[in-house]
């Protein structure tokens, strides 16, 4: 209903207006001392607004601090996490340290099947190995004890490259997990997962058969 119509009704609804006037006349009267009580209360009451307004900001600051602390990346123990030239150099220096097991234990080492990735990694490592020769011998032993989970398929091209560069070989395992080339499963890992999936399926099927047999026995008994 439009305002004009309502305004017209306001003038026309005489009974309603009269009823409201009579009701208003019967409302309780305001006590004479009520305003004095209000003044008394207003003068006595201290202001709390400043206290009330601070705590939301404090709470918000705590929440923001909590989020920042939780979302900040963890500090890495190795120099890989450093940024800038110093970090890049440190990253390259860590790669020759990782390469040494392939030199001293040729049984473990196998060239990678993924040519473009390995080629770039190896060229980078090549440069650093030339710079950092003494570090090779020191770090080799811990890596020798690692179980071989990621094996690299040898290809003729990579084998040639390894022959040309006897001291520079990288396994996929040696590349840090944060590198994009390490996100892919190796064929061995995929084969292992398929085998485990098949075994799990067989076990599930056996369990289903047992459950069905048990149900049949139950119904037969009934």
């Amino acid at each position, binding site marked *: 209903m439009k305002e004009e119509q309502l305004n017209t009704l306001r003038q026309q609804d005489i*009974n309603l207006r009269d009823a409201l006037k009579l009701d208003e006349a019967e409302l309780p009267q305001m006590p004479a001392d009520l305003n004095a009580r209000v003044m008394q209360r207003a003068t006595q009451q201290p202001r709390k607004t400043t206290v009330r307004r601070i705590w939301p900001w404090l709470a918000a600051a705590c929440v923001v601090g909590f989020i920042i602390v939780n979302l900040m990346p963890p500090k890495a123990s190795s120099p890989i996490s450093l940024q800038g030239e110093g970090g890049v150099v440190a990253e390259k220096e860590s790669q020759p340290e990782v390469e040494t097991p392939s030199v001293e234990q040729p049984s473990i080492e196998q060239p990678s099947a993924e040519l473009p990735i390995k080629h770039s990694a190896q060229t980078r490592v090549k440069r650093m190995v030339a710079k950092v020769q003494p570090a090779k011998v020191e770090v080799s032993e811990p890596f020798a004890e690692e179980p071989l989970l990621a094996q690299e398929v040898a290809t003729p091209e990579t084998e040639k490259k390894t022959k040309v560069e006897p001291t520079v070989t990288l396994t996929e395992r040696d590349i840090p997990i944060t590198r994009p080339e390490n996100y892919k499963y190796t064929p061995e890992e995929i084969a292992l997962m398929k085998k485990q999936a098949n075994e799990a399926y067989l076990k599930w099927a056996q369990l289903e058969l047992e459950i069905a047999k048990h149900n049949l026995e139950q119904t037969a008994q009934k």
Partner: protein
Amino acid sequence: MTTITDIDLLEGLRKQSPKAQQQMLECYGRNIFAQVARLVPGIENAEEVYQDVFVKVFNNINRYDAEKSALKTWLSRIAYNESISFLRRKSLPVVYYEDRNGEAEKLSDEEVDETFGRPNAETVQLIRAALKHLPPDERALITMFYYEEMSLKEIAYVTESIPTTVASKLSRTRKKLYKIIKILQS
């Protein structure tokens, strides 16, 4: 909107002048008390809410924006909100008619207009009885429009609504009142 005397009054209130506060109570106290007493049952409750209203007004006078509403309308808004909050807080038992099936909407406008428009003392008494069966907010709406002759815009400001909603609510409440009168007559 705000008058020249209101401006002087506001200046005094912002300085927390007791004289200005006293003047405000004398100017607007009676109307505010009546508004509160319509919504809140019992004189003790009305006194309590009245005190809360003006203490809140004195403490928050800096929030008043003269461009948005007149001082009286702003006071009415605080009084309305405080009364409704008080009713919710205390959960006082209030019995009123609820038109769940929407039967009031089906009534013809001519019947309603005739009942409210044609002068009749008996109808006036029936309307007074029917008003007691309205929920407090609807009753306040009818009173603000018919008795205090406030515009839809002012009522919307007081009830924190919009004018179109107020208009439709007024129309609905009017028909509901007529429905209650019919029930009381039968």
